[in-house]
């Protein structure tokens, strides 16, 4: 029987992989994918907690639905930005985008 800790550790690993991608992918779409991974790890957490701690209330699942919605929205806007960026600057690499520099 898989315990709560199993799920949490899995989620932690997935989260860390997501962060790694976030920190290292040069491609903006890759970064977005990494972020999706992190969302998923959060969702796993939510649902695991929902299952193991408040089985009747289902609060975690409901929140997971909200997260999924926001993630979808994020993906839509993020990808739109990527497309725009590509069109205007002909690049999709985030480390080339450093206009915020001093």
């Amino acid at each position, binding site marked *: 029987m*898989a315990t*709560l*800790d*199993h*799920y*949490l*550790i*899995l989620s*932690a*690993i*997935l989260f*860390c*992989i*997501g*962060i*790694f991608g976030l*920190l*290292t*992918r*040069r*491609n903006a*779409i*890759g970064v977005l*994918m*990494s972020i*999706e*991974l992190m969302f*998923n790890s959060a*969702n*796993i957490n939510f*649902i*695991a907690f*929902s*299952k*193991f*701690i408040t*089985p009747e209330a289902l609060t975690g*699942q*409901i929140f*997971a*639905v*909200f997260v*999924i*919605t*926001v993630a*979808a*929205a*994020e*993906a*839509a*806007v993020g*990808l*739109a930005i*990527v*497309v*725009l960026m*590509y069109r205007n600057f002909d690049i*999709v690499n*985030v*480390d080339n985008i450093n206009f915020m520099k001093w």
Partner: protein
Amino acid sequence: MELPIFYILAAIIIVSALFVVTLRNIFHSALMLILCFFGVAGLYVTLHADFLAAVQVLIYVGAVTILMIFAVMLTQQLTGRKIQQLNDQPLPAALIILSLLILLIVSITRTGFEIADNLEPMPTVGTIGKAFMTTYVLPFEIVSVVLLVALIGAIVIARRE
């Protein structure tokens, strides 16, 4: 019985996730992402979250990833782009990630959660639906507005002048 399934799913998820963040070809990454999402959906099933599993497949696999693939295809040629896909900080990042992971695992194992008594599976769709229409009606409406705004925003941003 559940444990082996969990490990298999976990392996799928972790391996595909690693591929997602490391593969050079971004298109392959997207494909790996699909696999990863399927794994997560399976995990939901083991957690008796049937509704969520369905939503996961529908939205992530069916919508988000497809969107990503579209974006990939819009932004670069698919063939033969052997460019550097990682930036100059994979090593420090890996170090940070590892230490973070260790810390997380340590704190997870240290924490004593109050596990509920009743772990029996039960149907969730009805309960969730009721909750959305009663207790969480306001967040629900807001979230739909957020989606609408994001939709319009995306169109506005990506639209050709």
